[in-house]
């Protein structure tokens, strides 16, 4: 009976799915001759605020806000969605620690649409009120703050916070009652691990660095991935070929952007089964990911159009749509 709590939410999401961009809409956007025409097209599709100025940054930001507004409006329990907001939450922590430790102030570096918005996070870090942070985040904040203050090593601070974010995502997924949240969390951590391993291999990082950065998950063996990364790119591909990310290994051979696209497409593929669910949190999670995916794709197209990139270069980065 607990899943019946989502009856209203799922029906509302079904009605909203009609307005998601389809593959055909993305093709139309891609065929727009200019950046301005793209913005006009998106505006006609209801993107941004009605009557507002045609500005790409504010339009995309508004769409992200709208997505979370819908989820907050329909979800019976927002705690289920913590797993999706952890990247933003931990980003805010990282940004706040750097702002405080470097005594520099930058604009627009925080996410406001998460549990602890930028100004509050900054206040917490400035006053060292780390105990106000949820769960393991307090310990992470203390460690990252002290590390940056004493070593001035920004990368080490990043590694500590990013690893904690991945651990939090994995933990939230493991404790989730819904299988789809578990799958999302595991895939997110595994894909992040693969990206870290590839970058670490390219920049010649040590085993100690990788052990600190890679987060354990179910579908990837961190030890084996680390050993592969120390051996070379071919070893990473060979290792991935024997995992659920075998196709990712092929994409990795093609280019880093092809791999990024494969990661997003795989997530969308995983979520597509939720189109046929009527009573669980799955369709809400899938809608959230679908919206993030389409916003990312639109951002890629707009950036490409703005900088006069050739159509082929934009096309190879376009993600599959959910609907």
């Amino acid at each position, binding site marked *: 009976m607990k899943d019946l709590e989502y009856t209203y939410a799922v*029906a509302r999401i079904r009605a909203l799915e009609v307005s998601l961009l389809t593959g055909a809409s993305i093709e139309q956007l891609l065929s727009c001759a200019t950046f301005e025409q793209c913005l006009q097209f998106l505006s006609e599709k209801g993107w941004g605020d009605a009557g507002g100025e045609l500005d790409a940054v504010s339009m995309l930001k508004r769409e992200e806000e709208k997505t979370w507004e819908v989820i907050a409006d329909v979800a019976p329990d927002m705690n289920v969605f913590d797993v999706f907001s952890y990247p933003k939450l931990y980003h805010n922590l990282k940004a706040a620690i750097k702002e405080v430790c470097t005594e520099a102030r930058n604009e627009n570096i925080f996410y406001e649409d998460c549990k602890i918005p930028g100004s509050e996070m900054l206040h917490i870090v400035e006053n060292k009120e780390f105990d106000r942070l949820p769960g393991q985040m307090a310990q992470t904040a203390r460690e990252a703050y002290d590390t940056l203050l004493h070593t001035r090593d920004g990368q080490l601070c990043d590694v500590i916070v990013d690893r904690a974010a991945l651990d939090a995502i994995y933990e939230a997924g493991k404790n989730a009652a819904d299988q789809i949240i578990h799958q999302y969390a595991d895939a997110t951590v595994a894909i992040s691990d693969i990206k870290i391993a590839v970058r670490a291999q390219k920049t010649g990082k040590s085993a100690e660095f990788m052990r600190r950065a890679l987060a354990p998950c179910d579908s990837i063996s961190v030890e084996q991935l680390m050993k592969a990364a120390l051996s070379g790119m071919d070893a990473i591909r060979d290792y991935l070929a024997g995992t659920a990310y075998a196709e990712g290994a092929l994409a990795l051979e093609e280019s880093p952007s092809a791999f990024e696209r494969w990661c997003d497409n795989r997530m969308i593929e995983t979520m597509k089964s939720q189109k046929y669910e009527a009573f669980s949190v799955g369709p809400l999670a899938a809608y959230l990911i679908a919206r993030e995916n389409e916003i990312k794709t639109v951002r890629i197209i707009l950036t490409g159009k703005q900088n006069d990139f050739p159509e082929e270069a934009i096309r190879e980065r376009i993600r599959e749509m959910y609907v």
Partner: protein
Amino acid sequence: MSIMSELGIVYALLGAAVAVLFAGAGSAIGVGIAGQAAAGVVTEDPSKFAKVLIIQLLPGTQGLYGLLVGFITLSNIGILGGDIAQIDVKTGLLILAACLPIGIVGLLSGIAQGKTAAASIGIVAKKPDQFGKAMLFPAMVETYAILALLISFLAVSGIKIQ
């Protein structure tokens, strides 16, 4: 008059109550589930109100079937006319047993139909032109409520009351 001889009418009345109560509860839960889904769709697209309302009402029939069987039972035992029949325990239990099919099947099919109706409302939300097909899925569940109604109706009508 002994307690045993009084129990007959109690069992008969209990049968009418079971038919109305369980079938009505099934419909209430079913219409409630479908109603939540309908409200979700209308929040985003009020133009689909009529279509989702029709689907929402489908699980409501079990309650009517229960009411029909309950009404016939009350009529047969004379409660409606004010002339209460003398019913022995055996006849009372027979009436209770006759009312069970629509009571139990009404409850379970009402809930199941409500869930199916909610899923069908999802079809209307995305593809309003498929309304006819969307109606058919919850209508299939109705078959079993009708079968239970038939048996309860025949059984209650067939019991001889002096």
